[in-house]
């Protein structure tokens, strides 16, 4: 392998400064207690806020519910499309790309006009699963599509059928386990989208994690920095966990020679 020259090292250092600099400064700022004092008081106040845990829990629950909805609805739909109606693929691609084209605020307006549903639905934050489903759709669709293309879905399905399995057993025992890596990826992306989503939650007046970050940022800057640091750590831990799980699956799934 070619060794990195002086120029290479300089570029690498500049990139490191560019990426790590703001992070370090955020951490330092979050530790600032005014007049040259440094300590963890911002973190203490932050964690003492009454709604922080609740909003975090709400966001995580929303993310998981969205993931579940995507797996339950999207995977069978895509499996059936690939097996029995491959001609519908362009339609699927189009629908999956729509959320990119339509601005979030237009979605909110449309959504609140459309869903004047029962109180038990629109009164809880789980109402947000509906818009989040569509927000995460493009990412989840891509990830699952890549996974499905990587296996010979038709042959595996037919093998399952000839062995007497019904479609439910085939999806549960054959398709889902072989889409593990793809599902990990789609879960990761969905988590990221839902955890960071602000517009819907704010306009529809739900107190999610992203809304809280925004609120804190407006009146307590050091706490906001502390919150950013924390959410950065949480996100990284989550990603590392998901990636590790995916890698372990990946060994078994590297496919037939």
């Amino acid at each position, binding site marked *: 392998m070619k060794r990195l020259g002086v120029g290479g090292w300089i570029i690498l250092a500049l990139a490191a400064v560019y990426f790590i600099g703001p992070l370090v400064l955020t951490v330092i700022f979050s530790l600032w207690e005014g007049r040259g004092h440094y300590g963890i008081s911002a973190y203490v106040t932050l964690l003492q806020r009454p709604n922080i845990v609740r909003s975090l829990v709400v966001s995580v629950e929303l993310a998981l519910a969205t993931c579940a909805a995507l797996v339950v609805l999207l995977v069978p739909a895509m499996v059936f499309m690939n097996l029995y109606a491959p001609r519908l693929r362009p339609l699927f691609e189009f629908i999956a790309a729509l959320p990119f084209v339509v601005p979030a605020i237009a979605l909110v307006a449309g959504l609140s006009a459309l869903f004047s549903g029962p109180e038990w639905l629109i009164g809880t934050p789980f109402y947000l699963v509906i818009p989040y489903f569509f927000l995460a759709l493009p990412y989840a669709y891509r990830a699952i599509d890549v996974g499905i293309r990587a*296996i*010979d879905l038709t*042959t*595996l399905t*037919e*093998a*399952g*059928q*000839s*062995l*007497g*399995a*019904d479609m439910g*057993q085939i999806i549960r*025992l*054959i398709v889902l*386990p*072989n889409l*593990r890596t793809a599902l990990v990826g789609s879960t990761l992306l969905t988590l990221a989208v839902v955890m960071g989503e602000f517009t819907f939650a704010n306009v529809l007046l739900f107190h999610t994690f992203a809304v809280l970050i925004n609120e804190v940022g407006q009146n307590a800057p050091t706490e906001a920095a502390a919150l950013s640091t924390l959410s950065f750590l949480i996100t990284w831990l989550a990603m590392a966990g998901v990636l590790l799980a995916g890698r372990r699956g990946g060994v*078994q*799934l*590297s*496919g*037939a*020679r």
Partner: protein
Amino acid sequence: MATVEAAGVSKSYNGRTVLAKLDLAMTDGELICLLGPSGCGKTTLLRIIAGFVTPDAGRVLVAGTDVTALPASARRMGMVFQSYSLFPNMTARDNVRFGPRVGKVPLAEQHKRADRLLEMVGLASHAGKYPHQLSGGQQQRVALARALAVQPQVLLLDEPLSALDAKVRAQLRDEIRRIQRETGVTTVLVTHDQEEALSISDRVAVMNEGRLLQVATPSQIYREPADGFVARFIGAAAVLPGVTEDGKVRVGQIVLHAEAARQHAAGKQVDLFLRPEHVRLEQLNGHMPPDGVAADVGDTTFFGSLTRMRLTLADGQIIWADLPSEQAEQFKPGSRVLARWDAESPRVIPRG
């Protein structure tokens, strides 16, 4: 185990006929090869029997029962696919016991069956491996064991050996035959390789363009091909178009003797089939016997004990001769020789 029958099966895609009112009846425990060139409809017929494709017309009967309306999952047919089809997320053992497992067979019995079948295909020591840890040949063995684990009435194999290299292919071919005999399961094997078909089958069904041309034992197919297509497809026979005379066939300027020409009226348009193993060569020494013909030696192909020689007749027609290799050395490429054969050897089939 059961008899299998396809009766009047037709299928077309986008107005193109792929199978044309095809009839095929198999006896219990028989191994039939569907043999034909690529695209002739072999896979389509197999998939109709398996229940993956619905025929436009006709019926599929297993042990006399009409199964045409049954889905594949209810037909109890084991299937081995051309491409590797093992479930990548399961070990060899779990692949094999998948059928019994979804069939609600007790767990202990599932494992017993899987272990016995892996033993049968010689992979007992690989039971815990995942498909990607197995070679292509091993994967197809596991696929065979998996198909047999549902104790199928019928075993269907769609070119199971075509992705393997020659040595493994020959080995696994013999093994499929042995296992088929041991289990006695009625088997349809699709192939486009005539050597494979002839060596493994009880009967060979030769197909072309959606039709069955001949269904017969390998030796019948080889010795008495029903028509020009079968003769050309099975082995390397020279096919020479000509006109019958008394006990001969006139091909262009030359006359080739063939007893079988007497079966047809004189002056009939026929094809004469001459197999390379029937042709003998002698040195030309001035005189030309009435049953001989002059030929120029062309390229030779060395097959070990045999050498195949390409011969050009006076009008440019090509025939081949298979000679023992040490004998073939006497006939140098470019030399003119005398080619002879027994009058009973060539087949003469009307051209239609």
